């Protein structure tokens, strides 16, 4: 009768000096809410699948995390969402890649697992399946967050600088 849950909200270079106390508290509160959502399901005797989707949905809806609402931008300034889910005792699995209009990709991955004969759907087909299954759809601006858009701009500027440097390198190489 024991249960447990472990969650993550991404790994990387999280600079202490760039993290304000307010942002730190905001992120910890979001992680707490995700743990609560999963724990409540499990404590009530619910399934681990429901707990996992409950916890991940909270994180997808929070702009602090790179998933759902807080997703990063592609080079084309769009958002392209991936998700997967798996049940251990039956080895059932479902996944989506490159979805762009489905609010909660983890719910779509679960629908793929439970309502389709497939494991992995991608792109517009995945979103079409989500619509067929009645999952909530959103317009692209739902996924817009200024800090992610600014990150993309910085990323493009860095890429452009690298291109200039390599152009100079080539000129030098050929005299």
């Amino acid at each position, binding site marked *: 009768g024991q249960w447990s849950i472990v969650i993550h909200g991404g790994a990387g270079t999280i600079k202490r000096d760039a993290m304000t106390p307010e942002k730190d508290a905001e992120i910890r509160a979001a992680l707490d809410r995700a743990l609560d959502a999963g724990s409540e399901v499990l404590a009530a005797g619910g399934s681990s699948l429901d707990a996992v989707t409950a916890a991940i949905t909270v994180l997808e809806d929070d702009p602090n995390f790179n*998933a759902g609402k807080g997703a990063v931008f592609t080079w084309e300034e769009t958002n392209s969402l991936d998700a997967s889910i798996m049940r251990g005792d039956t080895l059932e699995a479902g996944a989506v890649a490159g979805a762009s209009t489905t609010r909660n990709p983890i719910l779509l991955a679960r629908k793929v697992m439970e309502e389709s004969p497939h494991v992995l759907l991608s792109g517009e087909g995945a979103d079409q399946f989500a619509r067929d299954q009645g999952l909530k759809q959103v317009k692209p601006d739902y996924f817009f967050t200024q800090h992610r858009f600014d990150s993309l701009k910085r990323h493009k500027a860095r890429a452009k600088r690298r291109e200039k440097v390599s152009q100079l390198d080539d000129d030098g190489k050929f005299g």
Partner: protein
Amino acid sequence: TVGAVAIDRDGVISAGTSTGGMTGKRWGRIGDSPIIGAGTYANAKCGLSATGSGEYFIRLAVAYRVCSQLERIEREVSEEAGSMASRPGLAAQVAQLAADKAITEVGELGGSGGVILLAPDGTPVWAFDTPGMYRGKATSDGQRQVAIY
């Protein structure tokens, strides 16, 4: 990237992962998150969700590799002298070693990132080689932790 792994009162383990991928990705790039066996996997004895430089997690089949190792070790220990679950702490130690090893292997290839997983006895475990990983755990016996660094 976000993820969760849980075991319910019936002993069923599930794992899930969701992500927006890499900033500035092009050409329809897909990382490890939707690749079953790379960024997400679950079997009867283990569940895992990964985050990090996805291409390396794909090449190493990290999620499947770790869960497969734990399932095999659990089976061997069970045949020898009873289930790992009946030996306090053993399952978690083995799971931690497997997770650490997987992250080390990702690092050796040039990648970085982290994993969360549940050991065969349901103990939450994590490993990462980045300066931080947003993470948390809760159990029915009252353990609860949220951490960043």
